[in-house]
């Protein structure tokens, strides 16, 4: 069944999400940083490099207080420390935290130990490599269909017309939701992840709209159970009890939110890199054996995800007095660019063989969907390059980057110079 919604509702009542931070422009990245200032994602690599050299743990009074560690060691330390940091909210915002630890609103990403272990163990099997690998042919067909739809256009938007459609279609099929609702999911995700700068009331309305949509899907699955992730969750048990409706809905929210913008961003950033680095593009075309290391390297340098934690107890973190309920951003991409952890960290080296990058996080919250994300990124970028062995940015100034914790190009006009 399809959930009806007016198209103008999809981006919330205030139309296009505001690009400016609620708090105004950043005055100093070490003492007043704001990840929702559009300048942040635009100049992220430079900002992290400056901070790493001068102030490896930045702070801001915005959002009721937030910290930003940028070294690999500090990001790792926070990721591994589930005593001093809680995951009960992982998207920095200005509102009240509705869901409490240890379950949180979207288990297991918002869950803390020991509950986390059980909620995660439930979801691991459907995302294990041997369950994900069989999706390869479907993902490849989806990519080639999208490329076919581009026809012989000289200009294409690789973010809008390609990257963004891939993860949303795959997760809709896995959940057993109507694939026609893809635009609707994108609206939900956009409102929640990129709408950091919208009012709390508008954000609340987005969540309610998403809840109503999911409730309709769950009811449909109750009436017509089938072989998909939604039925799987609804028939799963935890501590010998069926999952609560809130748990089922929360886990679906997680799968929708976590899998869409992130993978879209990784595909888009990879294509952006190849469009702006013709030598790397030519090398990949000439040496297809490099795909394995190349995708890992693009994931390292353009890791899309910055997670967040909240401080669980007052404590000292290398001289920083962290207070309960302050936020801590976990910029995995900044960790991946730390020269203390990677040789020539700021360079993309397509044949880098030793690459312990943290694009999918570290510790107990390692991205549950990493096997699926890797599959989608690899096939999407491969198929794009196979179809278009030569392309470039149509207008570097027209590339628009996302705002918020997920970093990637949202508009990416590409000029096709050669097609297969």
């Amino acid at each position, binding site marked *: 069944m399809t959930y009806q919604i007016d198209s103008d509702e999809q981006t919330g009542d205030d139309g296009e999400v505001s690009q400016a931070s609620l708090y105004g422009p950043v005055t100093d990245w070490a003492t007043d940083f704001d990840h929702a200032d559009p300048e942040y994602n635009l100049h992220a690599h430079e900002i992290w490099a400056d901070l790493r050299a001068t102030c490896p743990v930045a702070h801001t009074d915005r959002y009721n207080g937030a910290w930003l560690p940028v070294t*690999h*060691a500090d990001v*790792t*330390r926070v990721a*591994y420390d589930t005593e001093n940091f809680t995951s009960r909210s992982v998207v920095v915002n200005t509102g009240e935290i509705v869901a409490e630890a240890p379950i949180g609103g979207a288990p297991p990403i918002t869950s803390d130990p020991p509950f986390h272990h059980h909620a995660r*163990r439930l979801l*691991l*099997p459907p*995302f*294990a*490599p*041997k369950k994900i690998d069989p999706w390869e042919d479907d993902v490849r067909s989806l990519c080639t269909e999208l490329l076919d739809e581009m026809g012989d256009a000289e200009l294409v938007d690789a973010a809008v017309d390609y990257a963004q459609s891939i993860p949303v279609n795959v997760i809709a099929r896995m959940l057993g939701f109507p694939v026609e609702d893809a635009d609707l999911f994108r609206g939900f995700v956009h409102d929640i992840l990129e709408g950091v700068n919208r009012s709390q009331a508008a954000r609340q309305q987005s969540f309610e709209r998403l809840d109503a949509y999911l409730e309709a899907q769950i009811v449909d699955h109750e009436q017509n159970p089938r072989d998909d992730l939604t039925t799987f969750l609804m028939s799963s048990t935890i501590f010998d009890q069926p999952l609560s409706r809130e748990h089922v809905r929360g886990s679906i929210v997680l799968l929708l939110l976590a899998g869409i913008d992130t993978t879209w961003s990784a595909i888009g950033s990879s294509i952006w890199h190849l469009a702006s680095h013709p030598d790397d593009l030519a090398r990949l075309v000439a040496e297809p054996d490099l795909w*394995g290391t190349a995708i*890992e390297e693009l994931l390292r340098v353009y890791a899309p995800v910055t997670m967040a934690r909240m401080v669980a107890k007052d404590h000292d973190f290398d001289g920083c007095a962290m207070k309960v309920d302050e936020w801590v951003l976990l910029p995995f991409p900044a960790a991946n660019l*730390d020269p*203390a*952890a*990677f*040789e020539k960290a700021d360079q993309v080296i397509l044949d880098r*063989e*030793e*690459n*312990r*990058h*943290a694009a*999918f996080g*570290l*510790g*107990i919250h*390692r991205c549950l969907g*990493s*096997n699926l994300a890797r599959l989608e990124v690899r096939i999407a970028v491969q198929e794009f390059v196979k179809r278009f062995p030569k392309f470039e940015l149509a207008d570097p100034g027209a590339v628009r980057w996302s705002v918020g914790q997920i970093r990637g190009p949202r508009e990416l006009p590409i000029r096709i110079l050669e097609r297969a």
Partner: protein
Amino acid sequence: MRVSIDSEKCQGHNRCYALAPELFDVDDYGMAMVIGDGTVPGGVEDKARLAVANCPEFAIAMSDDDASAATAGFATGSGS
């Protein structure tokens, strides 16, 4: 030469399984395990080294058969 996995550290990134399927398998939860006793057959030593060097959680160790000390040797960062 032998490889071993610290299952307390493994979080299921599956890099080892992707790089050296001759040496590593994954269970139904996507967690890695060594095949057999972890002995590295001739010809796949390089793959074993790559698996060690690409584990984000530093969960894989490699040792000489007759030496107990793990020789990661590829540590590029401070990690944990």
